[in-house]
């Protein structure tokens, strides 16, 4: 691997853009294809399929077998609410290798000393989320318990491709939230994307346990097909 290729690959990751390294393991020939260049590539179909699945593997090409190493951007957990649960969720997500951003317009909550290792933004969701870019590699978690803050965040998340949307609150709280989102024009299918009550049912009580159940649910959303998730939930 040439150093220049490695540097480009690292730069793409830092910019949250996917890329594929195509290697002929018999000769060592190698090239980098950036997400934006896939469509024009001779291997466009194979590269596109690899990017969609996110899985690396060897494929047959007209020139022989090639190993496709797929690099997708680091998954990001976007916590709306700089609350006690977020203080536990942030380090758990970091250990799993995910990027974490904590967002809360309440300046008393959104302080760096409460979140020493992750970026904390004291901003409203309507201001911050368009800039942050809620993409399909993002899990969005609404934890403030305050509709004034959670709702605009959820509205933004539901309009995005993010792979997980969860919102804290009891069934009663969520029923009222559903009514507000319906009034805002969201369909039942849109609203069904929201995991509520949030987290896997592990009997979580403490903020750290709730964080663990949320992180488990995010991991299941990432790794399990919808059918397997349903089977696991019914078990």
């Amino acid at each position: 691997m040439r150093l220049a290729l490695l540097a480009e690959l690292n730069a793409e990751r830092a910019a949250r853009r996917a890329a594929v390294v195509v290697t002929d393991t018999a000769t060592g020939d190698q090239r980098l294809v950036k997400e934006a260049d896939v469509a024009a590539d001779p291997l466009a179909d194979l590269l596109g399929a690899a990017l969609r699945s996110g899985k690396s593997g060897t494929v047959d090409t007209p020139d022989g077998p090639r190993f496709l190493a797929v690099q997708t951007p680091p998954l990001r957990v976007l916590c709306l609410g700089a609350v006690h649960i977020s203080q536990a969720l942030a380090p758990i997500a970091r250990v799993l290798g995910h990027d974490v951003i904590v967002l809360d317009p309440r300046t008393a909550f959104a302080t760096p000393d409460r979140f020493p290792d992750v970026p904390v933004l004291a901003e409203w969701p309507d201001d911050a989320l368009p800039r942050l870019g809620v993409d399909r590699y993002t899990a969005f978690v609404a934890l403030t318990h305050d509709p004034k803050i959670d709702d605009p965040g959820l509205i933004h998340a539901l309009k995005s491709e993010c792979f997980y949307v969860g919102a804290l609150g009891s069934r009663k709280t969520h029923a009222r939230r559903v009514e507000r989102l319906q009034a805002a024009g969201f369909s039942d299918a849109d609203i069904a994307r929201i995991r509520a009550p949030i987290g896997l049912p592990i009997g979580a009580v403490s903020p750290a346990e709730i964080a663990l159940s949320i992180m488990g649910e995010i991991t299941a959303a990432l790794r399990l097909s919808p059918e397997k998730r349903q089977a696991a939930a019914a078990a």
Partner: protein
Amino acid sequence: MLSTDEDILNSAEAWRRAGKGVAVATVVDTWGSAPRPVGSRLVIDDEGHFLGSVSGGCVEGAVVTEALDVIESGAPKLLEFGVADETAWRVGLSCGGRIAVYVEKVD
């Protein structure tokens, strides 16, 4: 400190820029039960320091040894490990799977 995919390739770049010999090992194929998925990486420097993993720790030692060779020669290697290997008593996967690992120099 646990290393993420990001740390692994960033370290490979940083080590190379610091003038070290560096190799990247990548799992390119797995058969049966394998501890780490295809695409998993281990980076190795010319003093045998390494970051990441290609198995559950079963074959990393052998990959590091081969990587030192690759750093020396510059020629990539495709390695296979599994319990069926004649080297099974020394290195192999206790889980019964097989893996192929591609080792290349960063130059």
